[in-house]
């Protein structure tokens, strides 16, 4: 098991190096990606651009620039400097990360809880009215774009522009440490919107997986041994059926920690997603680069965690 984890970690580092190299190259080959021009602004003269190129070390050979870039990232965690915010990318990301963590973790708890519950009930009561209604809703939620759903929810329930003024609306996010209750209430609508689509997908996934598992011989054996149906479903059925969900959960959380752009934009939550969105809008590539690396890191870490969890849940993985 230990060598398995070490192997996964080493692969993670290799992947990070590759992603870093790729973002470095993209940054320099994109038509708008010339750092000196971006720093100088759209109207700068060739003379000013040349001076900035010199200042930024862009006249050095590409391989030297690459070495300095990689050294900066891996030895000093130096992700560069934003052209528009006049601040270090590292500090900007650190500033935005708590909001994205709050949004993602809260939403993940909701969608896992809702998705698993609905999926299991639908599988156990297959073809019942409840099953059809649940899966119908799931299909509708999967089809609903997050952005659209966010606007609808705001127009219905936001305290400022909603028809029913229930929850704080867009722009109400406050940090957990400054106002815990305000933090919680400001995230209720974004959590629900972000969780809705995923909960629907997970519910369908769990349902399908559960139906398959509940037809297995060992489930019949468990029932024949006289175990309660609840124990059969939760202990023997769900434990096996949840494995595929765990796999995509790692990916989903990793991707969202890299930024839930649409939800953060609609609800005006200053997270990584909005930072990235603004950076793309302004061609502020150091930030794009930094957030891409962050997203890659989260996805890699989340996958490693999932692999370990998978090994725990499914003994076959451990033994292989």
């Amino acid at each position, binding site marked *: 098991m230990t060598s398995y984890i070490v192997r996964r970690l080493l692969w993670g580092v290799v992947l990070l190096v590759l992603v870093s190299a790729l973002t470095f190259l993209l940054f320099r080959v994109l038509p708008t990606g010339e750092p000196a021009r971006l720093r100088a602004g759209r109207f700068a003269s060739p003379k000013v651009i040349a001076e900035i190129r010199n200042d930024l070390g862009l006249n050095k050979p590409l391989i030297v620039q690459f070495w300095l870039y990689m050294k900066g990232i891996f030895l000093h965690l130096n992700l560069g400097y934003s052209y528009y915010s006049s601040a270090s990318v590292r500090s900007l990301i650190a500033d935005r990360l708590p909001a994205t963590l709050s949004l993602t973790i809260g939403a993940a708890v909701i969608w896992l809880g809702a998705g698993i519950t609905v999926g299991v009930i639908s599988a156990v009561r297959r073809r019942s009215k409840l099953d059809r209604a649940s899966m119908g809703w799931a299909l509708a939620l999967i089809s609903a774009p997050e952005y659209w759903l966010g606007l609808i929810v705001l127009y219905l329930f936001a305290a400022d522009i909603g028809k029913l003024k229930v929850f704080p609306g867009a*722009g109400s996010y406050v940090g957990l440490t400054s106002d815990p209750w305000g933090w919680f209430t400001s995230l209720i609508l974004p959590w629900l919107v972000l969780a809705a689509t995923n909960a629907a997908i997970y519910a369908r996934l769990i349902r399908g997986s559960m139906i398959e598992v509940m037809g297995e011989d060992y489930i019949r054996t468990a029932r024949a041994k006289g175990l309660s149906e609840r124990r059969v479903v939760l202990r023997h059925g769900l434990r096996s059926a949840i494995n595929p969900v765990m796999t995509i959960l790692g990916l989903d959380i990793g991707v969202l920690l890299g930024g839930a752009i649409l939800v953060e934009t609609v609800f005006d939550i200053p997270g990584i997603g909005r930072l990235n969105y603004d950076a793309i809008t302004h061609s502020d590539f150091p930030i794009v680069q930094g957030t891409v690396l962050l997203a890659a890191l989260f996805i890699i870490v989340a996958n490693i965690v999932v692999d370990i969890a998978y090994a725990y849940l499914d003994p076959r993985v451990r033994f292989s």
Partner: protein
Amino acid sequence: MSAMMRRTAPARRRGFALALALGLSACGSSGSSTSPSPSSESISASGIQTPATEALSGGRRGGTLTVLNHEDFEHLDPGEAYFSVDYEASYATQRPLFSYEPNSVTPIPDMASGPAVISSDGKTITVHIRHGVHFSPPVNREVTSADVAYAIERGANPNVANPYFEAYFTSLEGSAKARGGPFPGITTPDSDTIVFHLTKPNAQIVLDALALPLSAPVPEAFAKKYDAKSPTEYGNYLVATGPYMFKSNGEGKVLGIGYQPGKSATLVRNPNWRSSTDFRPAYLDEIDIKIGGDTNVIGRQVLEGSELVQNDAVAKSSVQLAYEHFRSQLQISPGAGDHYIAVNNKRGPFANVNVRKAFWAALDRVAMGKARGGSLVTDVMTHFLFPEIPGFEAAGGLAGPKVDYDEHPEGDPAIAEKYMRMAGYPSGKYTGAQTLEVVGSTGDPSSEVAEIANNTLHSLGFKTKLSLVDTSVMYSKYCGVPAEQIDVCPNVGWGADFADGQAVLDPAFNGRNILPTGNNNWGQVDDPTINAAMDKAELIIGTQARANAWAAIDRELVADAAAIPSDWDKEAAIESKDVAGVGDLWNTGTWDYSFSSLK
């Protein structure tokens, strides 16, 4: 005259286009076909505000105005600021030598104590500095002419890289070798006087440029250590001279205190500001700027909320909502720039003036305007100077010049065919072998506009290859690079740095401004007669004479069909019902924090 000018309105439009791209897909409403469409003349009569008619005095003192902006600032440093959103804060916190009253496009003395004195040979400008203006904490001392000199000199510092220094200040003696320190073109004979020495008599354009934020005083002793960094960090440690300042700590640090990038900014009263030295009433106690969010949501929050304004590009759906239900909370500002189609005057079919006239005649400019939001926010463009620019009326006003290819804004195929025949195509359609390279920009409404232009070209018999790319790529890789030999750029546009014909026409149509890269004369217009007229007009001092000269050049450009006009822009701004917003006519109608108040 260099070719670099601020594209103020397009910079604001960038956000607008983005907002539409998001908003329309979500709401499925507010398409162009349902857009309200009052004529420009009827705006005031319909209860909508315009900057020209808003009261500048009588506001209630006190209170906090909350601003919901989708877009972040680009730069807080007055030496770097070059964006309408930046200017909202710059002109509330900084005092350039000259600036504007909200309802005017004519500069008045601000940091200057009176009008500038131009020498009889037009090569020397003398400005006296106002007494009693102090820097905000931690500097606190009175402003001197040396502070203004340093502010302008640092524009040449590569770490500051002021975007318009080379456009307007290169005629200052010694500016070519300037790197941020003193140079012979700027002298300060005493602490109250600053003198600009020019190598050629183009004093008027230099004087106009002294109303830009670069001339706002910067204390060298305080800023120099920040200016030594690449890029400068002065924007993170600002001091103010205006009625407001960014909230800061004891060292003047703004970053993380009064400005959280991408999140918020807070303007508070400058304790060292004295109303007796300023024409701004500064009614508000504080301005809280919230950055980010969706423009559709922001629109509703502002219109239905309290003590709120939006001060960047308003979503089309919000403009429509305001027009239908909250008309008194809507302001429309003219003179926000233009959109036109650049056609390659140098090579290919459009080197022939009659083909250009045929394209002009065939184009449905009404449809182009509808794609951009209808006549509430656009006027059909009929020539090249735009409203609020001196010379606009003399060049034809809204109605435009009396030429047959401009007569029918919906497009006139018969006149188009006439000009195609005159160009040597007897059938009235293009019969050549060339496939036109058309490069436009992606997003709504740019792509729709590009499609309209492309279809018009097809109707004239052209085969085209239409490419839609990101706006910045369109300018930096295609339309701004003559070697790419692009035939048609349907999505270009212009906003002037100040109200002067030169600022509108010279960069885009003077052949001397064609550059190998970063070229703003996208059509490569290079008519020796027009070039000479522009060179002459540049040297004219005096409002009316300059206006007439640039109006005459405008008429020449129309006669030459140097480009194909599309629409003049008007910018919408919205406020809550309890806000007495005052918009800046000179800054695309953005709300002026120093004049706006709460009811």
